[in-house]
């Protein structure tokens, strides 16, 4: 069993995925990333967190990436895991997620990249509920954006400043 993030990193290193961050040179949009507990702390550890950062920095530009604190294996869970989103305990889930919300706000990033589905749903909900105003995107969206191959219909989670980029 492997994670696609390992492949993304490998393909970028091998030159098969020719991503670059030129699109963000002038825009200077800031990104942070959520380390999914399931993938990092509970499975593959810091090496996969490093791969994740390598991919993200290649795509958005090193200077436009801001890490959360703490991070990698020591990261806080977003509160979307363990069945929380389906459990019906929504008040508790949002209180739990407040820690994550504050962490994201402290980075000042306009976008939070979530490589996991539970994280994506939970962090979207947190941004909306606590009126954080940040966007929450999948990694594949940004990779395709950077490659100039992201279609019009595939931009659901992008904010207005990125809706047209590379179309």
């Amino acid at each position: 069993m492997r994670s696609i993030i390992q492949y993304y990193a490998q393909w970028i290193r091998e030159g098969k995925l020719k991503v670059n961050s030129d699109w963000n040179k002038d825009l200077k949009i800031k990104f942070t990333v959520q380390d999914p507990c399931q993938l990092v702390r509970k499975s593959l550890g810091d090496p996969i967190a490093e791969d994740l950062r390598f991919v993200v920095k290649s795509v958005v530009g090193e200077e436009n990436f801001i890490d959360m604190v703490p991070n990698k294996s020591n990261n806080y869970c977003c509160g979307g895991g363990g069945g929380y989103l389906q459990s019906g305990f929504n008040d508790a889930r949002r209180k739990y997620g407040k820690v994550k919300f504050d962490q994201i706000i402290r980075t000042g990033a306009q976008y939070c990249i979530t490589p996991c589905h539970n994280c994506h749903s939970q962090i979207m909900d947190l941004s909306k509920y606590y009126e954080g105003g940040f966007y929450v995107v999948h990694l594949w969206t940004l990779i395709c954006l950077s490659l100039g191959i992201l279609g019009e219909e595939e931009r659901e989670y992008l904010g207005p400043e990125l809706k047209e980029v590379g179309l």
Partner: protein
Amino acid sequence: MKEDAIKLSEQKGEFRKKVEDLLPEGNLDLCLTCGTCSAGCPATGLENMDARKFLRMVMYGMDEEVTTTPWVWMCTMCQRCIYACPMRIDIPGLVYQARASWPREKRPKGILGSCDMALKTETCSAMGASVEDWKFVVEDVLEEVRETQPQFKDMEVHIDKVGAEIFLNQNSREPVTEAEEMVPLWKILHTVGADWTYGAKGWAAENYCMFLADDKAWEEIVRRKAKAVDELKCKVWLNTE
């Protein structure tokens, strides 16, 4: 007369005995009560509970409280506490066992329903996407992309391609609620020339039976998915996450 200290060895509840048998390497006596676990846990304070307190209650044999507090559904079993704990005590392991001690039908309906749905469905989809639904959505979306984005008019997406290098799984949320979100991933795989396939069965990435703490159902789902990968003779089982 001085009161005797509470002797933990005499306080053994049933629950503690059970978890000590199941988690033999996790000697709960090693807890220093330092509170590092609860200090760094987002679930601290919910239901007036926290990780250290929960562990103490297990130690004191407070079985009734331990096996009924809804807090066990508010801890995500994220393992941050184990990572931080100087003695590596497995609190989420206790939480899992506490979840498992709830009567199955009393466990949170949403998780229960998702597990049961996956058990009932060949694809293991917790949202109940059938083999037919799945094939239809994939083909429909692919056709649309080929027609409207000339750059990708030759892009292929296989279902059940025997001998492909990679078996890709997919969270049900995409085919069921936001099918276009599969496209960027396909494009990436197409661009690098990956030899990959979906399965008609067993492709759903999610497994709520694990969160439900239903060991048998959890195992059944994992086995069914592994079988789908083996049947197609794929080398790599690839998670989209």
